[in-house]
C-alpha cells in the first residue's frame, strides 16, 4: 500500500526530536483520532533554519511529518506557508487514498508552528488564530465505509 519513499521516511524518519529553544511550536491532531503531530521550528531572519517533529500516528503520519520537516528547512516563512498537503504527498510518491488526511495534518502542523512563531513575535493578532485542528477526525472517518 505504501510507496518505497513512505516506507523509507517511516523507518528512517528525518528530524525526529525536539528543539528546546524553538521559535515556533505547533501541535495538531487528536489522540482520539489516532494521530498527533508536533512540529518545532527554528527561524532566523524569516528563514526556517531547523525543523524537528514528534508524531503519534500511523506510518503515513510519521512519513509525512518527516517529509514536511525536510520540505520546510531553508524556506522562508511565506514559502513554507505555501506548502500544500498535495505537495507533501507528492514528495512521498503518493499516499493511499485512506491516508491522504495525514498529509493534511502535515500542512496544518507547519501552519500551526508558524502561527505560534508569529504570535510570539507579535506579527498577528491573537484572535485571528485559525484553529486548524477542527473536526477533521470525524469528517475523515465518516467519509469512509458509508453505503452509497
Amino acid at each position: 500500500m505504501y510507496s518505497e519513499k513512505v516506507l523509507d521516511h517511516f523507518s528512517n524518519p528525518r528530524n525526529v526530536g525536539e528543539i528546546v529553544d524553538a521559535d515556533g511550536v505547533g501541535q495538531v491532531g487528536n489522540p482520539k483520532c489516532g494521530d498527533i503531530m508536533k512540529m518545532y521550528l527554528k527561524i532566523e531572519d524569516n528563514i526556517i533554519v531547523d525543523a524537528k517533529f514528534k508524531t503519534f500516528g500511523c506510518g503515513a503520519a510519521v512519513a509525512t511529518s518527516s517529509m514536511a520537516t525536510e520540505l520546510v528547512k531553508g524556506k522562508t516563512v511565506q514559502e513554507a506557508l505555501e506548502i500544500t498537503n498535495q505537495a507533501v504527498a507528492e514528495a512521498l510518491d503518493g499516499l493511499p487514498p485512506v491516508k491522504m488526511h495525514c498529509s493534511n495534518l502535515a500542512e496544518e502542523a507547519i501552519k500551526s508552528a508558524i502561527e505560534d512563531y508569529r504570535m510570539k513575535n507579535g506579527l498577528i493578532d491573537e484572535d485571528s488564530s485559525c484553529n486548524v485542528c477542527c473536526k477533521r477526525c470525524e469528517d475523515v472517518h465518516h467519509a469512509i465505509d458509508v453505503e452509497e
Partner: protein
Amino acid sequence: MSDRNIYLDHSATTPVRPEVIEAMMPYFNQRYGNPSSIYSIGRDSKKAIEEARQTVAGAIGAQPREIFFTGSGTEADNWALKGAALANQQKGKHIITTSIEHHAVLHTCQYLERNGFEVTYLPVDIDGLITPEQVKAAIRPDTILISIMFANNEIGTIQPIAEIGKIAKEKGIIFHTDAVQAMGNVSIDVEGMNIDMLSMSAHKFYGPKGIGVLYVKKGVKQSYFIHGGAQERGRRAGTENVPAIVGMAKALEIAIANMDNYNQKLTALRDRTIREIEEKIPFVKLNGHRKDRLPGNVNFSFDFIEGESLLLLLDMKGIAASSGSACTSGSLDPSHVLLAIGLPHETAHGSLRISFGEENTDADVDYLMEVLPGIVQRLREMSPLYEAHCKQQETQVTV
C-alpha cells in the same frame, strides 16, 4: 527488511494445511462435476459434499440436514440474522447482541435497524465478558433473536454460551452464535449448549478461504438469503464450491482430532508471551479476559504509540501481527471492541494482537521478545504523548 518470517496472525487467517490441499485437488479438474447433475462425476461431487456435511455436523453434534454451506463466515452471519429477523417479524422486531461482535454481525444489525428492527447492544465488562443475567434482563416480549459471539476475534474473550443458550431456550428465543473464532479452539456441542444457529469459516482453522457454514437447528424459522437453484435443499442457492467444501471438512476433522494438543501448545505460548510483555515493557495493558480467552490470543495496549506503526516496524523485522481485527483495517476507526472494554481512544489506537498457530514455537516468542521492547521504545521516543507524559512525571518528581 528481515529474513525472518514469523506469522503471528492466525486469527486473521491461516495457511491451508497440506492434507487439506491434497483433499481438494481432485475436485478441481478430475472430479469437477456439478453436484446437481445425475451422471457419474456429478454424483461423485454430490457424495463428497454429503460426506463433508456429515463431518461438519459431527464436529458440533448436529444432524447433517442442519448444516448449510455458505461462501464465508460473513455470509453465514448475514443469513443467520437477516433470515431469522425476516421470518419472525410477525412475532416481534427486537434483537439482542453485544457491542463487541464482529462487523459481520454488527453491520448486519445496523442494516436491520435501518429496516425497522430494534437492536440492544449489550455492553461488556472490562474483560470483554457479558453475563447471562444481562441477557435475561434485556429480553422483551418482542425479542425474536439473540446473537452472541462465541469468542471474540480481537481480545479472545470466550462468552458463557451454554448459560446464555439455556436462557434463550427457556424463553423460546432463537439463539445464534458467531463461532468463527471458536471453531477448532473450543469444544462445541449445539445440543448441550442450546444453540439454534452457528456460523463458522474454514480459513480460520487451516481450511480454504471463501467457504463457511451456517448450522440451523431443525425447526428454526428462518427465511433464505441467497435465492436461486435448489442446492442445499433449496435453502442456499449457487453451484456448490465442492473443493472448498471438501477442504473445510478435512480441516475441521483434523482440528477436532488435534484440539487438545493444539490448545495446550498454544496456551503455553500465549501465557509465556503475556508474562514476558508484562515483565519487560512498561505502560502496557492486557486486553481481554486473562483466563476465559482463546488459547492463541494475546492482545495488549501500549500507551503513547499507535498500532499501525508498531505493525509496520514488526513487519520490517519479519513478524506478522495485527492491531484490532484485520478485517477492519480498511477503516480508520479505532477498534470498537477495545472502546467497548473501556479503553480511551488513544489507547485503543495502540493495540497489538498476536495470535499463535500450529507452526509457532518458543523460538518465535524468543525472537518476538527480542525485538518488541525496542520497537515500542523507539516509537515512544518519537511520540509527543510520551514526551508530555515524561515531562509531567518530571514536574511531579521535582515538586
